[in-house]
């Protein structure tokens, strides 16, 4: 029996689902081992029972909560797909303001259908078994996690920081040319793709389990950042993870 796999989405950019689609030839091979039973973006079919549900996006409205609980009920294993689902991701950027203020700023209007609450990760509503971090997720990591689940193993995420992948690939450190980088406290697994792109890490994969924040902050201070600016560094993708 092939395992039944579903993809679901809530508030997000759908980039994580698309990353799965973009696995292309690899996806074709994976489809030999699973039965894709639900994937609204590309399929009309739905399913009663799901073995593994990958859920993208944040939970922002009462209706979302209900729909997520139903998905949980139908699924044996539920995996958060991407930062939005894992920790609120970029959606949580506005959580320094109330939803009312946000509504006024964008719509200058308070019609009932515009109602939202502060975006929450899936785990605020249901039990999340595993997670695929990143904004967007890394396709290869998704495959490895799916493989592990198909073999009934516990998927594991790297516990070390992005710097490791950066050093392995011998990229120049962005601190060397004056760009502050979140790599030292961010979970590896993306092959330091942003540093490869000539930029710096903004921490889209969330913090490592044991971020060494005080030495890290000292380094940031040496690069002329104030406490406020340091906290700001965490604020693109890590708003809901308490900035340490």
């Amino acid at each position, binding site marked *: 029996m092939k395992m039944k796999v579903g993809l679901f989405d809530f508030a997000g950019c759908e*980039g994580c689902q698309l990353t799965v689609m973009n696995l292309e*030839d690899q996806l074709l091979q994976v489809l030999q081992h699973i039965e894709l039973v639900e994937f609204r973006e590309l399929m009309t079919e739905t399913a009663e029972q799901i073995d593994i549900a990958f859920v993208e996006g944040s939970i922002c409205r009462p209706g979302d909560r209900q729909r997520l609980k139903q998905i949980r009920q139908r699924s044996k294993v539920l995996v958060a797909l991407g930062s939005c689902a894992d920790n609120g991701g*970029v959606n949580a950027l506005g959580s320094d303001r109330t939803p009312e203020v946000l*509504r006024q700023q964008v719509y200058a209007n308070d019609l009932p259908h*515009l109602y939202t609450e502060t975006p929450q990760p899936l785990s605020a509503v249901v039990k999340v078994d595993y997670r695929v971090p990143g904004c967007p997720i890394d396709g290869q990591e998704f495959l490895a996690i799916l493989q592990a689940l198909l073999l009934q193993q516990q998927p594991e995420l790297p516990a070390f920081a992005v710097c490791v992948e950066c050093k392995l690939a011998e990229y120049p450190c962005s601190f060397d040319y004056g760009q502050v980088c979140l790599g030292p406290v961010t979970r590896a697994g993306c092959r330091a793709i942003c540093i490869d792109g000539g930029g710096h890490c903004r921490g889209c994969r969330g913090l490592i389990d044991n971020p060494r924040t005080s030495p890290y902050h000292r380094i940031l201070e040496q690069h002329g950042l104030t406490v406020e600016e340091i906290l700001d560094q965490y604020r693109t993708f890590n708003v809901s993870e308490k900035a340490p």
Partner: protein
Amino acid sequence: MKIELDYLTRIEGHGHLIVERDGDKIVNCRLQVVETPRFFEAMLQGRHISDVSTIVARVCGVCSISHTLVSLKTMEKALQIEVPPQAQLLRRLLSYGETAQSHLLHLYFMALPDHLGVPSLFKLLDSKQELVARALRLKRTANRICEVVGGRSIHPVTTCLGGFSARPEASELKKLRQELVATLPDLEATVELFASFEFPAFNRQRNALCLAPENDYPLSSDNLLSSNHERFPVTSHHQRIEEYISPDSTAKLARCEGDCYMVGPQARLRNGQQKLSPMAAKVATALSLEQTTLNPFENLKARLVEVIHCIEEALHCIDELLLRGMGRVVTPNIPSLAGEATAAIEAPRGTLFHSYRFNTQGIIEEANCIIPTAQNLASIEEDFKRLLPQLLDLSAADIQHKLEMLVRAYDPCLSCSTH
């Protein structure tokens, strides 16, 4: 009779379809956009300009490159930063890659099942292996453009204010070129496939808007052109284009001079057909796409023509880049200036506007984005009203299917429209 379809499938984002009929009269017919508002325009306030393009990319995974590029363009305009020619070429190449992958995803995975009578392309995994494999192959090549130039197919990592922070090696471009050439047979097969489909006849006069085809096919210009032959600067768009709130939609809708209008592939083809690449022009003729009244169902054909245009132009871009020689990455200094600007780009689904105002510290004080799908939403509803009377003899299921096809033909991106 009442049709209530929750969560339309095979579209980007979340929308419901509602049709209520009382005998021969349609009493209610709506496309509800229920996508959760994410408040990007508010979230940008207080952020530094160096973070803006990274954040706005997350408005939409499918057109993250367009959001990135238009946001950079807007800020560069405000700061009067000159983008070097190599970077301009690379950005163009990146856009072609994005449009091609977005169109191919739509053509094969969202629209094609309707024409083949299956709920999804995955149903054909066994029976039509070659078709599915071809779909994925084509998508792969389009995505490869984005990866080689943008560092990642979704949410690019090499783009930055003033140009690029990393550029591909010449050897990578050469390899990419070979891959692009190798897709030509697949493209041919695709044209054959889509040429064989019947599209419902549903033409209506409409205003179609896109960036003016100045030197080439609409992509990036400072002027807009409408099918009513009106040309006006992007900066004055707010004098004609007005955003408004509908109780049916969490996305803000838009109208031009009080009326609904269409953006996207059909609009671009309508206004810029003469600038198509030679191969694309031939395909356009073969698919008989020269009419002046527009049938939204034929958006599919327009999309296919654009795919071919993108691949052909991408080849030219690569050749030009290689001919000039891949120079070093030069990123200009970012001046500490306050600024304000609006710019637009042709995203896969149509004209995309970004406007920002920021202070001397580079902190955003105000931001606004007008999304292609939001501009098309009013058009879709208008089409509903015109189309439904023609469908009244059909069963509820068939009506629903036709309407779904109509919505899909626009390839709406609801997550994007409710940014």
